[in-house]
C-alpha cells in the first residue's frame, strides 16, 4: 500500500504539486490522468524516491520514503519497477543486458539462469529472440516493451508506468494496455499508470485520479469517475482538455 499524505513539491518558486492526498491499495491499478505539465511525472518520481517532496509524507507500507536516504531506498526499490516515459533503456547495452541488469547487479545467479529469465520476460512482452539487438535498432513501442521486461525481471510488487503509450499508434497502444493488464493479473502487482489517454485509463484501471495544475481534483472508481460533474473532469473526459497548454 502506498499512502501519499499532504504532499507538496516545488522547484524553486514554482509549485508543481499542491497538498496531494492519495492512497493506492495493494494489487489495484490506479491511473493518474491530467494535462501536460500538470505534475503527473513529478508525483510518480516522488513515489519511487527519485525526488523528495518539499512537504508531506509518502508511506510505503509502514515506511516514510519522503526523506529516506538513498541507501535505504535502494533496498525498497528492489521491489519496485518503473517504465519511463521515454523508456530509458541503457543504449550502450543489448536488449538482453538491459533486461538482465537488475539480476546481474543484485543477485549471484549464474549466466545460464539469467539468460533463462531474460528469455522468459522478453517472451512475456512479445519480443522473443531480441536479446542481441541494440536499443537503437528498436521502434518506440518495442522499447517500451523492453522497458517493461526490464521492470518485471526482478519480480516487483509495484510497477510505475509513465505514459506507457504516448507516441505510439493505436494498435501498439492497445497492445501495451493489454500487457499492463496481463502483468497485473499474472504477477498480482500494484500498478500506477500515468497517462493522458482517457481511453487507456478507462480500459486498464480500477480507479482513476486526476491532477489539474498540481492539485488532485478527483479520484474514484472508473464507473463513478465517468459520472463526475466537475467541469474540468468533464472536459478531460470529452478529450477537450482546457489547461494552460492544452
Amino acid at each position, binding site marked *: 500500500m502506498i499512502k501519499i499524505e499532504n504532499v507538496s513539491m516545488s522547484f524553486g518558486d514554482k509549485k508543481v504539486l499542491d497538498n496531494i492526498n492519495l492512497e493506492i491499495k495493494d494489487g489495484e491499478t490506479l491511473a493518474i490522468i491530467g494535462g501536460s505539465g500538470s505534475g503527473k511525472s513529478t508525483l510518480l*518520481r516522488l513515489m*519511487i524516491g*527519485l525526488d523528495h517532496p518539499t512537504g508531506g509524507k509518502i508511506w510505503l507500507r509502514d515506511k516514510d520514503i519522503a526523506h529516506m536516504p*538513498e541507501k535505504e531506498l*535502494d*533496498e525498497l*526499490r*528492489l521491489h*519496485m*519497477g*518503473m517504465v*519511463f*516515459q*521515454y523508456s*530509458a*533503456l*541503457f*543504449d*550502450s547495452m543489448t536488449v538482453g543486458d538491459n533486461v538482465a*541488469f*537488475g539480476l546481474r*547487479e*543484485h543477485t549471484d545467479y549464474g549466466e545460464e539462469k539469467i539468460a533463462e529469465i531474460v528469455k522468459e520476460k522478453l517472451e512475456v512482452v512479445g519480443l522473443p529472440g531480441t536479446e542481441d539487438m541494440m536499443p537503437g535498432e528498436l521502434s518506440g513501442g518495442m522499447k517500451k516493451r523492453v522497458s517493461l521486461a*526490464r521492470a518485471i525481471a*526482478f519480480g516487483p510488487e509495484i510497477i510505475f508506468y509513465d505514459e506507457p503509450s504516448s507516441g505510439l499508434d493505436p494498435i501498439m497502444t492497445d497492445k501495451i494496455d493489454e500487457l499492463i493488464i496481463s502483468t497485473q493479473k499474472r504477477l498480482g502487482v500494484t500498478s500506477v499508470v500515468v497517462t493522458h489517454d482517457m481511453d487507456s485509463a478507462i480500459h486498464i484501471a480500477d480507479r482513476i485520479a486526476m491532477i489539474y495544475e498540481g492539485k488532485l481534483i478527483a479520484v474514484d472508481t472508473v464507473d463513478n469517475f465517468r459520472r463526475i460533474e466537475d467541469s474540468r473532469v468533464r472536459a478531460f473526459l470529452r478529450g477537450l482538455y482546457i489547461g494552460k497548454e492544452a
Partner: protein
Amino acid sequence: MFVRFLEIIGASVLELLYFIGDVMLLFIGAVKQMPVKIRLRHVIHQMSHLGVDTLPIVSLTMMFTGMVMTLQVANEFIKMGAESTVGGIIAIAIGRELGPVLVGVVAAGRVGSAMTAEISTMKVTEQIDALRVMGTNPLGYLVVPRMLACMIMVPLLTVYGDVIGVVGGWGVAKYYAGISSYVYVNSIPEYAVLNDLTGGLVKAVVFGVVIAVLGCYYGMKAPEGAEGVGKATTRSVVSAIVVIFMLNVLLSMVLY
C-alpha cells in the same frame, strides 16, 4: 559603481565555492562507493578506451614537445659549452612538468569530454534515473570505474609520453644540434633522479582524478536538452584544463 563591482566579485566567489563544494561531494560520494563494489570489468573497459583514444595524440604531442624543447635548449647550451647537460635538462623538464601536464590536457580533451557527453546523454534520457530505480548507485556504477581507470591510465600514459618526449629530444640533439647519442643519454642519469619521474606520476594520478571527477560532474549536472550536452562538454574540458594547470603549480611546490 564600486559597490556593484564588489557585488559581482562576491557573487562569483560564492559561485566558485558552490562549485568546489559540489565537485567535492561527488568525489567523496564516489570514494564512499568504492568499498561497496568495484566493477572490474567496467574499469578495464574504461582503461582500454582511454588508452586507445589517447595513445596516438600523446605520442605526437610528446614527441614534438621533446623536439622543440631540445631545439631551444641545445643551441643556447652549446654556446655556453654545456652540451653535456642537455639530455638531463630535457628529461627533468619532461618528467616533472611537461609529461604529466600535457598528457593530462590531452586526456581531458579526449576522455573527459567523452565522459561528459556520455553521462549527460544518459541523464537527459533518464538512464541515470533508471539506474537509481533499479537500486544501483550511479556514483558507484558510473563514476568509480572512470575514476579508477583515469588514476591508473593517466600515469601509465605519462610514463610512455615521457619516454617518447626524451626520444624526440634525442633525435633533435643528434641530427640537428650534433650532440652525440652517448653524451645525450649519459647526461640523463647524471642530472635526473628517480623523483623527477615519480613526482610527475603523482601529479598524473591527481590529474586523472580531476579529469574523471569533472567529466562525470558536468555530465550529471547537464541541463536538459541536446544543447545542454554540448555546453556541458565544453565546460568540462575547459575547467579540467584550468584545474590541471592550477594544481600543477601547487603540486610542483609540494613535490620539488
